[in-house]
């Protein structure tokens, strides 16, 4: 079990300090990789080089602390929570901390990424070490000034005291501290002594957000910049044959029309003119192969599920034998459509490509990888490429892919001027990197009332589940266990979508276990708990989840939700899942209004270890649960002849406020190292609701979106 172990890092040389020319101390540190021994932080704050260090702390002469938060902010709250961890060990008052988004000149980094709910998990130890190291240096400087042993000194809220009643503010010793050696060993606080971690801190950007200040990529502009809107092939599989740009060029304000690959960019003095220019383009498209449709995918995936071309991801015992000797075999199939990400801020990016340098600014979850890809595309040195990250109007996985930044760079290079590429909603939904359509077939063998075998088969468009996921529950709990995957190579671009793979897998498995309990006529909670007992004490290193922690969230969810004691007319559904290193259990409550199921409440119990910022953490859980319900209920995205059939919110339904349940969140209190919360509340939500709908209406749901299948008599899988 890996839950109690923090990810390790190389502490040696990862912190360097310097005195700032303008006063104060600058501490450069690397969160995820030790820096080279020869580099030193700059003495001028304007020269911060994120090549050498990926994060900085500045402590000014007046004691004010500026933290340059390293990781991209997409709404998951790390711009608030990561600096909180530093401030805790630095022992300063949170009110005296100012947070600035750190930029990235990309090179050498292994993880300056928003994705996989991993920022807090990987940042926990190095962020604490950094804060504690800086604190120790300030204490050492004060102790030297007083001529006392530093072990007799204490700190509180940015003030150092000693046993003799002397007091010095951090600002008064920063100059001396900057000249000291970086201590090798520092003591971290005991969790019981935390003053900032575990307390509610509001979003650090809130004032700017609620007064409409420029913050997001779409808000970014520079003098002389062109607004670029791009015409892309309307269908996956289309190629550009010819394009007449006469009409577009005749529009006043259109500056340039640039063809690159199968795309055409219209550059204009403003966004609207560029959009009009794009509409005026007359392009014809060709195709050299059969264009794909949802109907075709359906058949292909069904054939794959029923075929033999599988890759086995994990096999325990002998599933075949278990099935051959079973009293009963239960088999169900679960199906999901593609899903677009639909970040509220459509994709966009700024690029300024000159012979000297490549400057990129915008919303990106993967600044380092994107800089590398831009360098490759432009045949430039990666050192020439700089990336500045703006706040992001949502990510959900879409902004892991820098395709929009590559477009901006290519257009800027060809146009020889700075450009900002802007996607319309139609562009955004039509040129997506979608959650692929997936089908699961799950079978279980039962002998003498016990589950003896479990076989999960996945058929997916493009990418399949990866690496560790086959080691999630119920791996280890069932003697004969097998996970097989098969995929179909599609021209439609697919990729990570919030809680990749588990966002639908969890629905399938947690629906299956619910139904299994009904068929076996055992209590659905007991069925899950009994399975978990078999995992306790396992020596299987591959097993990712902790049976004890999963058992605990299940039990607490039963208690907090009043499971089994719902008022008349209220129907409950249960689901529990482990992913992204976090254990979650959810109980959904559904009522029937005019025979239509309405989700009124979800009780969510989460074990993510120490909760760094409870206020932000609850927001992630509330959002994750509602997002999970919204997409399970309404998310429907199909293709016809390679073309997406919905391209805007008139034909693509996102959950709205009047459709949302109240989410009640409970965190397990423990002193385990924290894990991330951007994703893990989402996967269990779909099954919790589906299981509640089963209780309410007697309809078992096997396909998403529920809205399409809720009224029809659902066929067995």
């Amino acid at each position, binding site marked *: 079990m890996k839950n109690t172990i923090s990810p390790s890092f190389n502490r040696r040389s990862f912190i360097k300090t310097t005195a700032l020319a303008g006063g104060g101390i600058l501490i450069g540190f690397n969160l995820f990789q030790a820096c080279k021994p020869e580099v030193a932080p700059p003495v001028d704050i304007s020269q911060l080089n994120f090549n050498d260090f990926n994060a900085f702390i500045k402590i000014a002469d007046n004691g004010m602390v500026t933290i340059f938060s390293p990781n991209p902010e997409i*709404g998951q*709250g790390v711009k608030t929570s990561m600096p909180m961890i530093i401030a805790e060990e630095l022992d300063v008052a949170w009110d005296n901390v100012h947070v600035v988004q750190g930029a990235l000149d990309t090179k050498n980094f292994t993880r300056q990424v928003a994705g996989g709910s991993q920022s807090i998990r990987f940042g926990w130890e190095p962020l604490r070490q950094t804060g504690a190291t800086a604190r120790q240096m300030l204490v050492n400087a004060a102790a030297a000034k007083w001529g006392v042993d530093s072990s007799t000194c204490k700190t509180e809220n940015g003030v150092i005291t000693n046993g003799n009643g002397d007091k010095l503010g951090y600002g008064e010793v920063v100059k001396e501290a900057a000249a000291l050696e970086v201590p090798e060993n520092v003591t971290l606080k005991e969790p019981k002594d935390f003053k900032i971690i575990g307390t*509610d801190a*509001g*979003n650090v*950007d*809130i*004032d700017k*957000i*609620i*007064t*409409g*200040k*420029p913050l*997001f990529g*779409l*808000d970014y*502009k520079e003098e002389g910049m062109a*607004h670029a809107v791009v015409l892309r092939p309307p269908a996956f599989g289309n190629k550009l044959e010819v394009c007449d740009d006469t009409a577009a060029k005749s529009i*006043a*304000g259109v500056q340039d029309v640039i063809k690159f690959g199968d795309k055409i960019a219209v550059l204009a003095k*403003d*966004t*609207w*003119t560029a959009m*009009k220019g794009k509409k005026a383009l007359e392009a014809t498209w060709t195709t050299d192969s059969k264009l794909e449709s949802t109907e075709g995918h359906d058949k292909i995936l069904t054939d794959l599920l029923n075929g033999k071309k599988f890759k086995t991801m994990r096999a325990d015992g002998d599933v075949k034998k278990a099935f051959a000797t079973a009293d009963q075999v239960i088999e169900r199939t679960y199906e999901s459509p593609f899903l677009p990400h*639909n*970040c*509220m*801020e*459509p994709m966009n990016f700024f690029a300024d490509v000159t012979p000297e340098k490549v400057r990129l600014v915008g919303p990106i979850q993967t600044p380092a990888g994107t800089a590398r890809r831009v360098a490759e595309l432009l045949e430039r040195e990666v050192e020439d490429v700089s990336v500045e990250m703006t*706040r992001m*109007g*949502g*990510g959900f996985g879409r902004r892991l892919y820098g395709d929009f930044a590559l477009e901006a760079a290519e257009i800027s290079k060809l146009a020889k001027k700075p450009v900002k590429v*802007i996607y*319309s*909603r139609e562009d955004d939904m039509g040129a997506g990197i979608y959650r692929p359509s997936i089908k699961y077939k799950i079978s279980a063998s039962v002998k003498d009332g016990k589950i003896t075998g479990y076989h999960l088969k996945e058929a997916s468009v493009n990418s399949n589940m990866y690496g560790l996921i086959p080691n999630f529950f119920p791996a280890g709990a069932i003697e004969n266990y097998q996970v097989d995957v098969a995929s179909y190579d599609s021209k439609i671009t697919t990729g990570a979508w919030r809680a990749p793979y588990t966002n639908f897998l969890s629905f399938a498995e947690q629906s299956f276990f619910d139904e299994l309990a009904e068929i076996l006529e055992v209590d659905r909670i007991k069925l899950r708990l009994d399975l978990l007992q078999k995992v306790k004490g396992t020596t299987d290193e591959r097993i990712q989840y902790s049976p004890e922690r999963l058992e605990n969230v299940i039990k607490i969810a039963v208690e907090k939700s009043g499971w089994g004691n719902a008022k008349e007319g209220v129907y409950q559904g249960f689901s529990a899942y482990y992913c992204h290193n976090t254990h979650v259990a959810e109980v959904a409550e559904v009522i029937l209004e005019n025979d239509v199921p309405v989700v009124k409440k979800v009780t969510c119990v989460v074990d993510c270890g120490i909760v760094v910022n409870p*206020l*932000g953490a609850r*927001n*992630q859980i*509330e*959002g*994750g*649960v*509602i*997002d999970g319900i*919204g997409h399970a209920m309404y998310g429907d995205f199909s293709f016809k002849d390679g073309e997406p059939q919905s391209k*805007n*919110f*008139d034909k693509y339904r*996102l*959950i*709205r*406020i*009047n459709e*949302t349940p*109240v*989410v009640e969140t409970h965190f397990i209190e423990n002193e385990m190292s924290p894990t991330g919360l951007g994703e893990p509340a989402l996967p269990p939500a779909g099954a919790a609701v589906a299981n509640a709908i089963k209780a309410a209406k007697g309809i078992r749901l096997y396909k998403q979106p529920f809205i399409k299948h809720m009224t029809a008599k659902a066929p067995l899988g």
Partner: protein
Amino acid sequence: MPVYNLTINGQSHTVDADPDTPLLWVLRDHLDMVGTKFGCGIGQCGACTVHVDGSATRSCLIQVSMADTMEITTIEGISEDASHPIQEAWKEVDVPQCGYCQSGQIMSATAFLKQNPNPSQSEIRDAMSGNICRCASYNRIEKAVALAASKMS
């Protein structure tokens, strides 16, 4: 190109734009008031909500040629220092996740509370249903609107 005189947040602005340019893009590109966000361009998501003569209106659907007789208020005109009771409530509840839709949410809420200073929970849910929050900060939007109503009464 024709010239239009717009009254925005009580101030007069002169804009040189095509008559069909949506107010949204006039605000963002011509006047550098980027608090009003682009989300869908077809009036479905509410990110671009402004007040026109006091009513919540999707600025992506208003052409500049129609706007020169209107009193327009944008998020920048609600208060510069986040001191409006609705902004205070937003801050107290810590509503935003990514934050992108929030100026539109605040504009819808402000216009709504003017019409209905003492709304019920279901009235809040109905009134705010034109604004999408992709991060689903809906529980908090609901709470913040109710809190703002109590602050203002």
